């Protein structure tokens, strides 16, 4: 077996993930390389979910019975865990949402309804990048269409990096908000946060970071990032689906208006008007995803017990190995950075003229799960003149043997369509 420096004890870790034992297509062990889409869940998270429903289930807040108090403590306890995980200065800065898309839409809508000095209107500009997931493009297009604000973006270099050569022209005094991804979901590129944040701060623009592909894989410190908003989702970091996070700076959350109205987000309600609860509740209308938040709390505990720095080191080693092995495959072209430097464990590629759908289908037959298509980042495909890519993405339980299986699988694909 291939030994690489920095690898985690995957044999032990994999025992925590029941699904990784699954066999598909007549006894082939699953090789799960679709972690950028969603991660598998450890037993600890599954247990937390069933324990919540079996023993503590109730609606949160305001209940006076014991179950309501337990459910509230678990839900709010999860908020404490997430706050610690991202080094938030205050737990009240952690808003639970449905997913990262909702978090990003929430920011766009806060700004869409805000007064000065946050107001977005036809005199102002919104800045994003060409490598965003659709969830960090479309909310800003909607905001731009509704307010008349101009939407601008950074392009991408041939090597899959942000082209910041014109940063002073893209981010200007008119810029109100700069929203970009920390790690590309299609190319794995890790973006230079500091350079962008520094320029945004120079012109007094707010910064929103999509950390969906970062939070599961590296130390995420919202204070070090110096952003104003950070969005991510639970299901890519060993948590359940249906739970996302928006972290926002406290004074902004105090100043900005709510988006969704309803129960839980109010202070008092009359038939004429209402006043609102302080953040985070101001932004959490209705019964929240309670069990899912509890599950995310368990996921955060799980990841923390292993160590995010160790997970990052493991994935770096796997990525380095995977890049090297993949580049040995004839006709394979990596879309994105072709080294492991400043890149995450997500690798997109094309294989000659063979369409990614066909690549994915033949890999699936061998039990190898990859994702094919434009990965909700169609502008990236357009940029490189390709209809789609095949994407392999790794996580803390991925092994060099799985990289080998992928490379062998691709040989099989080439033979099949050769």
């Amino acid at each position, binding site marked *: 077996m291939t030994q690489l420096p920095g690898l985690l004890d995957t044999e032990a870790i994999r025992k925590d993930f029941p699904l990784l034992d699954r066999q598909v297509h007549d006894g082939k062990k699953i090789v799960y390389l679709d972690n950028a889409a969603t991660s598998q869940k450890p037993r600890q998270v599954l247990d937390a979910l069933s324990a919540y429903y079996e023993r503590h289930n109730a609606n949160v807040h305001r209940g006076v019975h014991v179950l309501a108090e337990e459910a509230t403590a678990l839900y709010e306890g999860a908020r404490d865990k997430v706050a610690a995980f991202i080094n938030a200065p205050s737990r009240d800065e952690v808003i639970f949402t449905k997913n990262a898309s909702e978090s990003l839409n929430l920011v766009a809508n806060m700004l869409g309804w805000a007064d000065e000095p946050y107001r977005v209107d036809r005199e102002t500009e919104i800045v994003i990048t060409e490598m965003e997931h659709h969830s960090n493009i479309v909310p800003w297009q909607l905001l731009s269409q509704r307010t008349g604000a101009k939407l601008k973006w950074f392009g991408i270099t041939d090597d899959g990096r942000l082209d910041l050569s014109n940063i002073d022209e893209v981010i200007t005094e008119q810029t109100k908000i700069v929203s970009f991804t920390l790690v590309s979901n299609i190319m794995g590129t890790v973006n230079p946060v500091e350079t962008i944040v520094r320029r945004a701060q120079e012109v007094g623009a707010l910064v929103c970071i999509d950390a969906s592909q970062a939070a599961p894989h590296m130390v995420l410190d919202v204070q070090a990032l110096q952003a104003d908003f950070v969005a991510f989702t639970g299901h890519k970091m060993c948590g359940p689906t249906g739970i996302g996070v928006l972290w926002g700076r406290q004074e902004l959350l105090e100043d900005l208006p709510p988006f969704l109205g309803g129960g839980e987000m109010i202070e008092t309600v009359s038939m004429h008007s209402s006043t609102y609860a302080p953040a985070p509740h101001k932004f959490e209308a209705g019964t929240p995803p309670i069990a899912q938040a509890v599950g995310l709390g368990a996921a955060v505990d799980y990841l923390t017990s292993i160590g995010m720095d160790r997970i990052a080191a493991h994935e770096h080693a796997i990525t380095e190995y995977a890049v090297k092995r993949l580049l040995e495959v004839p006709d394979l072209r990596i879309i994105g950075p072709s080294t492991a430097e400043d890149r995450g464990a997500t690798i997109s590629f094309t294989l000659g003229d063979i369409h990614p759908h066909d690549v994915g289908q033949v890999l699936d037959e061998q039990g190898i799960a990859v994702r094919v*298509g434009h990965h909700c980042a169609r502008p990236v495909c357009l940029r490189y003149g390709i209809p*789609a890519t095949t994407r392999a993405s790794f996580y803390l339980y991925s092994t060099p043997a799985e990289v080998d299986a992928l490379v062998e699988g691709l040989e099989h694909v080439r033979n099949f369509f050769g």
Partner: protein
Amino acid sequence: MKLDSMYQDVILDHYKHPHGRGLRDGDAEVHHVNPTCGDEITLRVRLEGTTIGDVSYEGQGCSISQASASVLNELLVGKQLGEAQKIQETFLELMQSKGQVEPDDAMEEVLEDAVAFAGVSKYPARVKCALLSWMAWKDATAKALSEEAKTA
């Protein structure tokens, strides 16, 4: 093996040697996309009275979608409209069968090479690939007929 049931030789042959590919004159043109995977097709229909004079197309996509467009061209060009519609409906029925329909002789007679796609119907994610050009053809034909009605 299951994979071979999807990638029949007939399909791979059409994929590697497509029939009637490239855009030519037509009475109507449509552009269809499969948003989940980015497959695209631009397709033109030329009618000669009630006969299909030509179906020309250009696009990008996987072997299934490309082969399906090729089979469509081979099958429908020269057919009467009514007959072509019947073929289209039969193909749709087969593709939506979730692998439950075993094509019989009657179906095979209608669908000819297109029967090879029966295996694809077992793969929900790929059914759309196989249907892309057929839906585009249906759309383009309706458009050509309504243009004709307007000018008549």
